[in-house]
């Protein structure tokens, strides 16, 4: 086995010299005007996109306020799953277990017992109960954990297909393949709500995924979600989101053509 250069610790004097060279090579100038202009155009496009039509709903969703359920048929599993979601119990428990609603638990908080009797599911699934849970969820500001009401108003579609694989080392390729499979026409898809596609019993605690097309994946063999966002121009942001928190693990931009 060959010794890589980085396996040999540097003497302090040499390390200090390297750090000095690095510090001297720091970029100290401002962002070039052409880059500033480019990013300001991007910001303007994003702001316009948000202000128009379907994006008017985005700020409310991001505040945690719940949008009224659409009249179209939707699974109530999402509402039941999200009400009072607690600490993750993944292996051997299954996705069907629910947490009691109305007990004020945050999605990101821990609980002594993360499961409830399945008999509570019917009660949680009732629209009246779901609405009550919505009312109990305060508006969330940045810095607060996503509450159970954040994803109410989303639609979950169960698929019999196993979750697709997304790998760090092949992120762009895997997300491109996923886009072609899940969102074959990115420019024409509906991003007004939160549409989640996942296998039954997929072990991924819910979180505030945001609007877009959300699909369950195995990211480096761990459950995660990929979100395809509303395209901007001829590109679309795809994000790998962490289960339970919705934190962006990875993000990339994909073309919407081809």
């Amino acid at each position, binding site marked *: 086995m060959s010794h*890589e*250069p*980085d396996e*040999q610790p*540097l003497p302090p*004097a040499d*390390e*200090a*010299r*390297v*750090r*000095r*060279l*690095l*510090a*001297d*090579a*720091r*970029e*100290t*100038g401002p*962002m*070039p*005007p*052409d*880059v*500033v*202009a*480019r*990013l*300001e155009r*991007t*910001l303007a496009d994003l*702001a316009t996109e*948000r*202000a128009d039509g379907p994006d008017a709903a985005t*700020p409310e*969703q*991001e*505040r945690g306020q719940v949008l009224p359920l659409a009249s179209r048929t939707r699974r109530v599993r999402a509402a039941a799953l999200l009400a009072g979601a607690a600490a993750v119990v993944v292996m051997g428990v299954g996705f069907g277990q629910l947490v009691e609603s109305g007990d004020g638990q945050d999605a990101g908080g821990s609980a002594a017992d993360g499961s409830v009797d399945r008999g509570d599911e019917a009660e949680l699934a009732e629209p009246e109960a779901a609405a009550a849970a919505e009312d109990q969820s305060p508006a969330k500001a*940045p*810095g*607060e*954990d*996503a509450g159970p009401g954040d994803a109410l108003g989303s639609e979950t579609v169960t698929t019999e297909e196993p979750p697709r694989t997304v790998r760090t*080392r092949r*992120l*762009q390729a895997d997300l491109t393949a996923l886009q072609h499979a899940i969102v074959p026409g990115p420019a024409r898809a509906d991003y007004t709500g939160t549409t989640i596609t996942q296998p039954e019993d997929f072990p991924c605690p819910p979180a*505030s995924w*945001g609007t877009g097309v959300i699909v369950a994946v195995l990211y480096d063999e761990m459950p995660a979600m990929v979100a395809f*966002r509303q395209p*901007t121009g001829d590109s679309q*942001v795809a*994000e790998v989101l962490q289960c339970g*928190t919705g*934190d*962006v693990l*990875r*993000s*990339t931009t994909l073309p919407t053509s081809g």
Partner: protein
Amino acid sequence: MAPEPPVDPPAEWGADASDAELLSAHVAGDPDAFGILFARHRDRLWAVALRTMGDPEAAADGLQDGLIAAFRRAGTYRGDAAVTTWLHRVVVNACLDRIRAAKVRRTDPLPDELDEGDRGSLHTAADAHDETLDPAEHGLRSERRAQVLVALQQLPEEQRAAIVLVDMEGYGVAEVARILDCAEGTVKSRCSRGRARLAVLLAPLLDDDEDPAPDADGNPARTGDVGSVRRRGPPDPSEVPVPPSRP
């Protein structure tokens, strides 16, 4: 056509509005808040993106990706770290994603002479403070920087990102760990390994270095003026790093 100069922020947003307030306003639907927030930190974000990507065009692409991601995902900000930390995390991740996607690896040998056509050479090696140096010293310094930047691009992206944040931008290890979403020990390891690689790649420069021996902590006895307002060297565990504001 010359690019338009930056636009001043609206009068209703005072300079005393905090980053968190601006981000919250953005999530609430304010159309200007995010732009103001980004403008506050864009120079440092640009510096990080540029040194991480090694090329101005790629840095602009990575920064744009990060900007879009941050704009859309502002609602996920948890408040457990500074807004700037969160912004840096999003931008650095976007840059690293681009690097991995493009499988960019710099394999060019270190230049014996300065080549203006190379990426990461004169365009990014020049420094605003060079104008105070005499021409000979200016040339030597630019050449040295160019070699450092070329060598930096030889590092694996994870090591490069850690070194850019710690050794170039002066962030503390704890904050860099939050930015890179890894353990502090991982940051230290990446920096240590990266520096060791650079020591090999930059051996001629190290041999020419005539500065005095470092102090007991391994910090250089003195550093060149790079315009930083923060101390350099290993982070002080008791110090909470505050990114300097640019004029």
